[in-house]
């Protein structure tokens, strides 16, 4: 037994061989039936590395049909898993990580010098010898985009029900409830009966969960940044749209609470080292709306201050918020018609978009920058729980 182990360690060249008839079993055990939890504690993206080592052996034996068949089955297997788990963040994130990693491997070991600059000499030995898989890389890139879109859809679906109550209705600043506009004090949302109320902490908990899962699964850091930019944009759009339609939240106190909530979200991004995501920048319209609620709205100087501050809000949005603005009590005045006219006059040269509401379903285009791995194929160990004993190390 000892002799066998020694031979394997010495000779393993980072390739995996299997019989053609075992391909279906390979895809079943490694893709369609795999539970991400089974792989906790192993190298992130292990399925991608195993698949690459199988592709490499088929390339080494110059078996183009085997390469075609394995890649096609892999891609179809991944699509099948995603369809079955189309509301499972963890599963979707897992296959996004692995699809991107397989794509990176096909680049890193393509033999194309542009992708080999960070390879060690040992890694260069693990390049493909016979086939150029550029077209399959395109397919994997298209598949990665599909998986990313599914991931965002799932994350948005989980966050969206929390946004209005957490951002606009929940009062975490002590003493603020005493200064809510009269007549609206007890109202929550027109669609929420109070039981579905969330605080900002719920949003933060949910985002912590997303972030931990994506990091543990080895999803590329650049992709994680793009996920949070997209989610912050959605939080911004849903909150602003509600603000633009609800008189009861257009008040000084909501402005104050909103600014505090946004600062908590900024703090969260910093705490997770995600400030480069651009998430805060996507919230600029909401930040300005919160400030607009808090600014004085009476004199010519106030109008000028508003116009120079609210550059990310359209004239239509500014005017709408001013019209909806609800005084706190009998001592605060409503915004006068003449003040709103002054603002309109000052902003008339702006070439603003006509629609009032933001498209909360808008998606930023995603990019998957090449991210080579420092891992060497011959160091990868296949755990017994994967039931892949029919793979022979070569």
């Amino acid at each position, binding site marked *: 037994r000892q002799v066998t182990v020694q031979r394997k360690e010495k000779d393993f060249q980072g390739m995996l061989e299997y019989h053609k008839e075992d391909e279906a079993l390979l895809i079943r055990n490694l893709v369609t039936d795999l539970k991400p939890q089974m792989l906790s504690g192993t190298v992130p993206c292990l399925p991608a590395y195993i698949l690459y080592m199988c592709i490499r052996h088929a390339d080494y034996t110059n078996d*183009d049909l085997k390469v075609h068949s394995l890649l096609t089955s892999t891609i179809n297997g991944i699509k099948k898993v995603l369809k079955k788990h189309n509301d499972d963040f963890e599963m979707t994130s897992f296959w996004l990580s692995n699809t991107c990693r397989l794509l990176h491997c096909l680049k890193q070991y393509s033999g194309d010098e542009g992708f080999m600059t960070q390879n060690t000499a040992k890694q260069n030995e693990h390049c493909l010898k*016979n086939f*150029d898989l550029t*077209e*399959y890389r395109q*397919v994997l890139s*298209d598949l990665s985009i599909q998986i990313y879109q599914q991931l965002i859809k799932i994350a948005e679906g989980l966050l969206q029900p929390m946004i209005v109550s957490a951002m606009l209705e929940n009062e975490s600043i002590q003493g603020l409830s005493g200064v809510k506009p009269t007549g609206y004090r007890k109202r929550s949302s027109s669609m929420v009966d109070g039981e579905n109320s969330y605080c900002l902490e719920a949003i933060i908990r949910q985002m912590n969960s997303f972030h931990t899962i994506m990091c543990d699964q080895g999803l590329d850091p650049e992709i994680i940044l793009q996920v949070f930019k997209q989610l912050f944009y959605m939080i911004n759009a849903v909150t602003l749209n509600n603000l633009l339609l609800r008189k009861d939240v257009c008040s000084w106190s909501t402005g104050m609470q909103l600014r505090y909530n946004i600062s908590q979200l900024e703090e969260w991004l910093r705490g997770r080292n995600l400030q480069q995501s651009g998430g805060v920048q996507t919230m600029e319209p909401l930040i300005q709306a919160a400030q607009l609620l808090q600014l004085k709205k009476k004199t010519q100087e106030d109008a000028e201050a508003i116009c120079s501050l609210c550059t990310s809000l359209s004239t239509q949005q500014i005017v709408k918020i001013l019209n909806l603005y609800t005084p706190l009590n009998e001592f605060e005045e409503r915004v006068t018609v003449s003040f709103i006219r002054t603002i309109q006059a000052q902003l008339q040269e702006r070439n603003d978009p006509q629609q009032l509401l933001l498209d909360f379903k808008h998606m930023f285009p995603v990019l998957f920058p090449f991210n080579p791995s420092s891992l060497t194929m011959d160091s990868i160990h296949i755990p017994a729980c994967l039931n892949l004993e029919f793979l022979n190390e070569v």
Partner: protein
Amino acid sequence: GSQRPRPRVLLKAPTLAEMEEMNTSEEEESP
């Protein structure tokens, strides 16, 4: 070093949409 690798053969791949079509028709054919 001195060994110059021979050019690799481009493996043609269907697009993702074409793969989907092939997969769907296979599923339809099977009972």
